[in-house]
């Protein structure tokens, strides 16, 4: 069986991606508070929504990447040959 090697570069890239998505979710929370004139305490009290949103978007990006990977797989094999 072939060993699966996870490189430090890959981990770093995924963590940066997760952080960017989290930041975007926080910005969405701020936009929601400003636009709907609700309380700033929601920056903390709605953190669970922000985290869920972050994970959902991250999972969605993973799904898109997986689909692209699967679609590109035959072409990749050809080019390897």
């Amino acid at each position, binding site marked *: 069986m072939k060993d699966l090697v996870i490189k430090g570069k890959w981990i770093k890239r995924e963590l940066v991606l997760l952080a960017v998505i989290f930041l975007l979710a926080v910005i969405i929370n701020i*936009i*929601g*508070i400003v636009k709907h004139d*609700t309380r700033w305490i*929601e920056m903390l009290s*709605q953190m669970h929504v922000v985290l869920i*949103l972050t994970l959902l978007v991250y999972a969605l990006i993973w799904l898109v990447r997986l689909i692209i990977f699967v679609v590109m797989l035959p072409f990749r094999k050809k080019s390897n040959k």
Partner: protein
Amino acid sequence: MTYKQSRRIFLQKTALLTGGLFLGYHFPDIRALANDQDNVADTVRLGIIGTGSRGQYLMTHINLIPGIEIVAVCDNYKPNLDKGVEMTGGKAEAFTDFRNLLEKNDIDGIIIATPLHLHAVMSIDSLKSGLHVFCEKAMAKTPGECLAMYNAQLETGKILLIGHQRMFNPRYLKAFEMINRGQLGNITQVRAYWHRNNDWRREVPEPSLERKINWRLYWDYSEGLMTELGSHQIQVANFIKKDFPRRVTGTGSINYWHDGREVFDNVNLVYEYPDGSSLIYDSMISNAHYGYEEQIMGPKGTMELEAGRIYSENPPPAPGILQLLNNIEHKIFDPLPLGGKSWIPETAVQDKGEYIYEVDLEDDGTALEMEGFAQMIRENRHSDILLREAYYASIAAVLGNEAIKKGEMITFPEEYIL
């Protein structure tokens, strides 16, 4: 949660309530419970008249409470009497005639859980024998009997407590306090209902016992749904309104259980209070979908006391992020309108509200009520507020039936206003 745990939380919570202005006039005597249950000085010795289903229910609760001993039981139906003795571990003395029980000189108080038509005579005889009395609701079968019981209490000075356990239910007490603080505004309407889907019959071993066992179904012994169920909810409405209804009208019939019964299997009534607000009440035993509820409505909000929730007329907005995501979702998935909305359906508000009381207690108030009765006996302190509540609720329940039978608007008779 055990009764002991529930009780501890109840006392902690109600300690906060008792400091409020609400105690001034309209607050049940929960002070009766403010003793240390583990160090009860005097054991209260009780006799129980009527050990049928309700009597047994009360005994189950009493058995949870330290400092109360059931020393005598009375029933003229042998299976119930035997069960009553059994529930005391065989310790209680058995009687088949309540008058013999009243002659026992080592009893502090009496619990009456007999058919409605016997409440007045048994309560009055017990009071006049120098005993404190807890009598199940409704108070009595006629306004005259209710008044006679009230007067017997005044005459003897003994405790007379009627079994409206919601007055000892922490959730209700909390709700009463919130309403009194004006959280709903002036109460303009109370809507209450109690729906079941069963024939209300008990199994009868032989036909000659039909009326004895199924006494709830016959006018000679019972006032049907109004006194068995309705009196509880009328009492709640009265307590919230701090008044009693002066007029009642309505309809009722037997529209499903055509099985020889006499009392209505459905009742639909409107009670009117002096300030023009109303209690809309209905009860039926052919559909249980909506169960039972008391809905208290004012300009600022609504309470559902059985569900234990309060709903504001202006609920706080959803968090900004949820509103934003919701708007995005609607923009993507909703169909495009061809024109502006000219009509918006006025369907019920979907707000889930908030809990009135966050602690889920096992007891519906019955055990706390029994404990309260025992403590009132120890302190020899009668609660006129609770008796008046029971008095007006019971008479209003009976007048509801009168309105149905006569097909008229019935006014609360002047001679029964205390």
